[in-house]
């Protein structure tokens, strides 16, 4: 009853953001264990981003843990001008790059500058018809393996974007912020990545589409 109406209306507009900010405030005020819940939605994107970067499950898991610890220790520095997840992903990316340097496996290929000018064949696989492959087909293990292989086979700058944008369903702005690239670069890379995936997968995916009944003797 005593709460000012303006606060209530803010809450109604941005419940997610409000509750995230409120959780952070409570953690900083001493309810430390709430950090576990705050970090939980970040686990999967952090791990997958690091796996993309490090290409090693044990290293990716170790750096994911270090990312969580670093985020906790630096929580006071989080300004709230992005989502908490975006901030955490930036930490993960920097920690992952640091680990690569430490391991001495940092490739010299550019991850940012000039990469979007790269020429390449981004022509999709040419098809004359398409039969939808339903999600239920993923019950077959070989389909999941085929999809993972195609994503893992993408050049790193495209794989990162697919991972955050399509797999973790982050919007273009958040993807750009987490990877520290422009929104335009996200769009270009996403377009190329999807074309490469379509090219790699479409010719093989037909085997997972339901069989047509062909009642009228037409194309099956």
């Amino acid at each position: 009853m005593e709460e000012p109406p303006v606060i209530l209306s803010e809450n109604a507009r941005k419940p997610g953001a409000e509750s995230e900010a409120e959780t952070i405030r409570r953690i900083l005020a001493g309810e430390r264990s709430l950090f576990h819940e705050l970090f939980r939605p970040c686990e999967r994107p952090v791990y997958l981003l690091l796996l993309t970067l490090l290409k090693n499950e044990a290293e990716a898991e170790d750096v994911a843990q270090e990312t969580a610890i670093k985020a906790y220790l630096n929580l006071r520095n989080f300004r709230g001008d992005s989502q908490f997840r975006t901030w955490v992903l930036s930490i993960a990316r920097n920690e992952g790059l640091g680990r690569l340097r430490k391991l001495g496996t940092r490739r010299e290929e550019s991850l940012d500058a000039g990469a979007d000018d790269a020429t390449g064949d981004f022509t999709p696989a040419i098809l004359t018809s398409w039969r939808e492959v339903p999600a239920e087909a993923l019950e077959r293990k070989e389909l999941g393996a085929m999809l993972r292989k195609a994503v893992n086979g993408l050049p790193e700058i495209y794989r990162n974007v697919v991972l955050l944008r399509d797999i973790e369903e982050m919007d273009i702005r958040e993807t750009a912020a987490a990877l520290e690239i422009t929104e335009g670069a996200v769009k270009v890379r996403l377009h190329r990545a999807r074309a490469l995936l379509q090219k790699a997968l479409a010719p093989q995916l037909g085997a997972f589409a339901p069989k047509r009944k062909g009642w009228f003797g037409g194309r099956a």
Partner: protein
Amino acid sequence: MRIDCQHVWEHISAYIDGEVEAVLRAEIDRHLETCEICSAILDSTRNVVVLVADDRVFELPAGFSRRLHDRLGREMELAGP
């Protein structure tokens, strides 16, 4: 203006995300009505995007979350209030 297949392919990703402006979108829609190849490329690309996003494709290793929160908890204890 009539657009060709190449032009449609250049915008497929943005088209899937609903980020093509209205005039171009109408052109692409008109092209798709008569072009089986572009329709198949659009449908297959959209299908690939949906399948790749399924949670069953990329999973966390077993016990990942428990190990992370165990270590985090220990570090939080060490860090103190």
